[in-house]
């Protein structure tokens, strides 16, 4: 336990990276997932097919392989993140972080899309017809009527998807991001007699982040229920 307590700054900084990964990939995956679901339920057959194919391919690919692809294979095709050089305080966001965000975003967006699709299916057809009847085009029907209601209906599964994302950020440890799990490995290597305490400390860190997020999700859910 002392290994962590004596190095609290390293501990918090590592979880800082975890939180950054989660926030950036969480926002981007929600945006991408929303675009994907609009394509999937939209009137253009080509876009429907493209979105469905994307979901099938990405959802059936292990996350580690996504990471490996963007770390080792994509650079060969010229897709690299060397341009990313952002420094905020003591945090450095570089190519490794960029590859991790892209992997996590693409991977999570497929699940966001499917979660939202369940929400879209829960919106009664009459809502869509009423939106069409006042002259809203497809984009307006989706953004003004269907998606706001779909988000409300799909909030519990979407929260689960984002919680999975929080934990999935740990995969970035293997691909050069100094986030919590990477730091944990550093600790266990340096203080091998304290492994148990180190594991407990990092488990607690993840639990706190997930619980804080769950709390927000539950509150949002309750707020929306009052509004309806």
């Amino acid at each position, binding site marked *: 336990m002392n290994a962590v307590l004596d190095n609290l700054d390293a501990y918090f900084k590592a979880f800082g990276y975890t939180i950054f990964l989660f926030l950036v990939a969480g926002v981007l995956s929600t945006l991408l997932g929303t675009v994907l679901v609009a394509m999937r339920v939209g009137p253009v057959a080509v876009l429907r097919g493209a979105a469905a194919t994307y979901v099938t391919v990405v959802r059936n690919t292990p996350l580690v392989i996504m990471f490996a692809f963007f770390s080792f294979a994509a650079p060969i095709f010229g897709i690299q993140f060397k341009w990313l050089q952002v420094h905020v305080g003591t945090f450095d966001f570089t190519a490794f972080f960029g590859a991790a965000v892209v992997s996590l975003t693409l991977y999570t967006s497929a699940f966001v899309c499917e979660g939202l699709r369940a929400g879209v299916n829960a919106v009664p057809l009459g809502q869509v017809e009423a939106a069409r009847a006042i002259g*809203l085009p497809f984009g307006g029907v989706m953004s003004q009527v269907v998606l706001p209601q779909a988000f409300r209906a799909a909030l519990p599964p979407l929260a689960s998807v984002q919680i999975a994302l929080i934990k999935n950020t740990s995969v970035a440890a293997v691909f050069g991001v100094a986030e919590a799990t990477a730091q944990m490995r550093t600790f266990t290597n340096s203080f091998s007699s304290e492994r148990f305490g180190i594991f407990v400390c990092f488990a607690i860190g993840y639990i706190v982040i997930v619980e804080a997020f769950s709390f927000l999700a539950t509150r949002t859910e309750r707020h929306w229920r009052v509004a309806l």
Partner: protein
Amino acid sequence: MTGAPLVVLDHVDKWFGDLHVLQDINLTVDRGEVVVVIGPSGSGKSTLCRAINRLEVIQQGSITLDGQPLPAEGKELANLRAEVGMVFQSFNLFAHKTILENVTLGPIKVRGIKKEAAETRARELLDRVGVGHQAAKYPAQLSGGQQQRVAIARALAMEPKVMLFDEPTSALDPEMISEVLEVMVDLAKRGMTMVVVTHEMGFARTAADRVVFMADGAIVEENTPDEFFTNPQSDRAKDFLGKILKH
């Protein structure tokens, strides 16, 4: 153009699978005219109503609105729908928006009217249908009759050329039916062009210029309400009226 009919259905046919739900429908609605469509369940009257703003796609024939054929898809279709008000049996108010937002959504997003102007107009309309004091509430907090009156205000906010009513009182408790019908009668008096699918024979008698009787997907009889109710020509209409007017 003012003399030309507003809505023209010309040899319209539609099938649901093998079921021929609209059979060679010819119907003309003039400006300011109130046409009430009645008939037994499954006669195709709702489908007819919904075909006029292309919520149902027809397979043969043509429908024109103000001289323009219905566009197939996309922006043009959306623009046409903005000109056609629609009131549904199940109200279909936007559940996540307040009453006021329900009425202002179309004017703001489709017509591009400023929020303040849209709200002023929406409040006038809500007052007119008698639910002005409910503007800040959500649809689920209103009674069915109130929701349907909001739905009428929502459609009117688009200043439509014609209003379609698809069984607007069929989902309402009896005591709420009259409050909705009053709004509709008032609308008819103000000269709105209306196509009304309904089982309310009282409304047909007082407000309709013409009654269209449908059975099995076809228009069987068309007449003034007086003539139709006192002197129906077809056996099908006699049978229908006999069943509903008996009680």
